[in-house]
């Protein structure tokens, strides 16, 4: 026993000294050295992207999560693609396309000589294979149905057939015209995967992605890093400019900024608005703005008293001071929302005037509605931070204060996120905070998805139902002439404004921060982008 305890002590001392030696040893190395494994000498060619959460899958069709697409945008490409910083449609894997007069047949002429990362050819058969795979899936496998109205055997399914006309021509035949069809095809989930790899990996394709994109998948250390390397055979000459991209998870926004300041990462998203000044004051860093394509709103469940009364809902619109909220919690990096969709989207109605902040008018409306003495409600605040709602609890307090001025007592409530969405979908909230980031830059993706009666139970959390609006939205879905669609959506926004199921709050500008030497980083409004053109100065 004696000897043992003495030995233990010696071991302990040895452990301490080893530990301390390790601590003080090579400290300069990590912070100083910024680029290893580079083969082009002194020029940096590895980009480390810091973000808040990990991907759930690397097979983009299996998920709806933004974090997943940040990575897959670099591995996969779609038939048509969005503009650098907007949702206009440009050639992608398809060089050009024709649309039949009736809007039912789309013929895509594919780019030739493109290869998947596993060396197999990209061609019409590959496109057909991918669509067959998705169309024959189900809700649990692929959320494909959300954009194309169902699966192969569903009545609502828009696509009747996808066929290879010749090796590089593929044709889509639709059952009815779908106006946002091309915009849907450009979405990240519809990146074309290598058929050989899908067959080889089966369900494991989600962690072994093979596409045609500028970067190839190398390694995924869950909740930590995802490493991609340059696709040397990429079809665009001279691209990508980087040799390696590493996506790294650092959940805490401030810690992520610390890592950026310390040079451990080169770029980060999810910069707190309150940290913007810190970044601007640092001459090694820059702030990059992501174009806004979101809306943060206060919903009112229109089937619950007192919000079943339109006048009460309008009164709420008069009672909330958006400007003050934006100045206090968005660092000015947001614009007050007037309509349920952001102005950057085609079909936005800029003739509509917002309800001004006017407490007297609000009281008047409440009186008219028979609620002169006010009422009590629960105000539900989101438990998580989103770009459109970075500090829900504090915003809720401001709203609570505003409402108290017109005699409405709001009790702030919250619950963990999954339950929050669940309860909202069941219409259990009086008044609640939520938001939406657009998928494809089409008005349908905001107005129909969030406010049509068809969406009650899923994303129409305010249970708002208006038949006139429904008819307009359905007509707009099949109308292929853009000018006519725009008119329909403008009309829809007027109806919504009048019925006021929401208090539209903000369209925010998400912020990124990067090291000064990061060049050509163009954030896309959908929230994910390929880093094909990014380089170090």
């Amino acid at each position, binding site marked *: 026993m004696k000897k043992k305890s003495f030995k233990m002590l010696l071991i302990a001392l040895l452990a301490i000294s080893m530990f301390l030696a390790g601590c003080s040893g*090579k400290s300069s190395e990590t912070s100083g050295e910024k680029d290893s494994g580079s083969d082009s000498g002194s020029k940096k060619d590895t980009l480390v992207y810091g973000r808040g959460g*990990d991907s759930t899958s690397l097979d983009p069709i299996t998920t709806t999560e933004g974090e997943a697409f940040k990575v897959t945008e670099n591995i996969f490409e779609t038939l048509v693609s969005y503009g650098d910083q907007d949702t206009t449609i440009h050639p992608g894997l398809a060089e050009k396309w024709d649309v039949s007069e009736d809007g039912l047949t789309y013929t895509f002429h594919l780019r030739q000589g493109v290869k998947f990362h596993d060396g197999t050819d990209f061609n019409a058969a590959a496109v057909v294979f991918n669509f067959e795979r998705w169309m024959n899936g189900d*809700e649990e496998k692929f*959320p494909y149905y959300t954009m194309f109205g169902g699966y192969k055997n569903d009545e609502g399914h828009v696509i009747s057939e996808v066929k290879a006309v010749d090796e590089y021509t593929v044709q889509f035949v639709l059952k009815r015209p779908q106006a946002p069809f091309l915009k849907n095809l450009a979405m990240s989930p519809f990146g074309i995967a290598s058929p050989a790899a899908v067959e080889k990996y089966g369900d494991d394709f989600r962690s072994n992605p093979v596409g045609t994109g500028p970067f190839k998948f190398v390694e995924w250390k869950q909740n930590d890093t995802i490493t991609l390397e340059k696709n040397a055979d990429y079809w665009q000459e001279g691209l990508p400019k980087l040799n390696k991209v590493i996506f790294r998870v650092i959940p805490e926004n401030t810690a992520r900024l610390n*890592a950026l300041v310390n040079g*451990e990462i080169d770029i980060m998203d999810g910069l707190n608005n309150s940290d913007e000044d810190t970044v601007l004051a640092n001459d090694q860093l820059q702030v990059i703005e992501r174009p806004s394509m979101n809306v943060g709103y206060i919903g009112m469940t229109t089937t619950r008293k007192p919000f079943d009364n339109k006048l009460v809902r309008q009164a709420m619109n008069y009672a909330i001071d958006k400007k003050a909220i934006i100045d206090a919690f968005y660092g000015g990096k947001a614009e007050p929302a007037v309509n349920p969709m952001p102005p950057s989207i085609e079909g936005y109605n800029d003739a509509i005037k917002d309800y001004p902040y006017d407490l007297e008018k609000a009281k008047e409306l409440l009186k008219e509605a028979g609620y002169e003495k006010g009422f009590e409600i629960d105000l539900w605040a989101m438990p998580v931070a989103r770009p459109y709602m970075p500090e829900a609890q504090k915003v809720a307090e401001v709203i609570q204060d505003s409402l108290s001025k017109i005699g409405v007592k709001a009790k702030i409530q919250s619950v963990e996120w*999954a339950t929050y969405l*669940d309860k909202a979908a069941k219409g259990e909230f009086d008044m609640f905070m939520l938001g939406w980031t657009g998928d494809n830059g089409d008005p349908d993706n905001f107005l129909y998805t969030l406010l049509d009666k068809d969406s009650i139970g899923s994303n129409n959390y305010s249970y708002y139902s208006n038949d006139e609006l429904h008819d307009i939205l359905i007509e707009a879905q099949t109308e292929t002439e853009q000018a006519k669609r725009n008119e329909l959506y403008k009309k829809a926004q007027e109806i919504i404004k009048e019925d006021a199921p929401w208090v539209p709050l903000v369209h925010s500008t998400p912020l990124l921060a990067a090291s000064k030497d990061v060049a050509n980083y163009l954030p896309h409004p959908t929230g994910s982008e390929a880093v094909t053109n990014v380089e170090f100065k």
Partner: protein
Amino acid sequence: MLAYTARRILSLFPVLIGMTLVVFAIIHAIPGNPAQMILGQRATKEAIAEVTRQLGLDKPWYIQYFDYVNSLLHGDLGTSLRTRGPINEEIWPFLAATMELTIAAMLIAVIIGVNAGIISAWFSKSWFDYTAMVLALIGVSMPIFWLGLMEQWAFSIELGWLPTTGREDVRNPVSAITNLYLIDTLLQGRFDQFGTVLQHIVMPSLALATIPMAIIARMTRAAMLEVMKSDYIRTARAKGLGMFWVVYKHSLKNAVIPVLTVIGLQAGLLLGGAILTETIFGWPGIGRYLYDAIAYRDYPVIQSGILVIAAIFVLINLIVDLLYVFIDPRIKYTN
């Protein structure tokens, strides 16, 4: 001793069964529908109903429980709803990361804590004693979140000594064998990487060690004071033995039992309670794995994660119990 060990191990089974029941019950007490979470915000009602059925969530609870235990017995921890990967494969890297962090933290906590406690006891009521105990009090009450960010600010941004977050230099990544990176780098003879991995573990393990270190210091001090009042220690000191011998040869052995208990409990707590540290330091450990699982209602991961942590907790306590007998033969275990 052998009979005792055997008995002690046998007694684990009811505990383990109880654990599966509790884990199962807790999960089913939580409101909300996991199908909604899998499908996301864009899901339709029909889709949700379909997925609920596919997951067996519409079956009675006891059938779900038996299915669950049955697959556990086959070494199957289930499939993550969120990533759709098998949990028994997924969980190990997270567990390893947390184990590495916990061991480093416990090493710091025990070495500094025990010695600070001893010195405080020996020089009780001295300035050292007072300082150490005030520091320990501060340590116990320190919010890890704040401490972590302060460490980053001081050691990374101001001094530039240590990296802020993560387990490794991502530009020079470790190829995992056991997923315990300190061991992996040594196995591969990558001493440069061993150095950077060590640097990465310093701050999070210090932050994680703060609270147990303080508790262990206070516990050791109390236990040592108790022992040092006894006659045999008085005799030893009267013989003229130096502090080192009195403490490490005579007192510590008798003082160590309660300290060991605390160490065992703390080690178990750290395994599951490292979420905050893991979040601030971007450490891909089991705490965050579980946290994400909770946010996404990933039932199988929540269940298996809690179960694995609980099992390790039980195991650590078993080891502590066995160590008692080993250290102090006076302890006799009978029925």
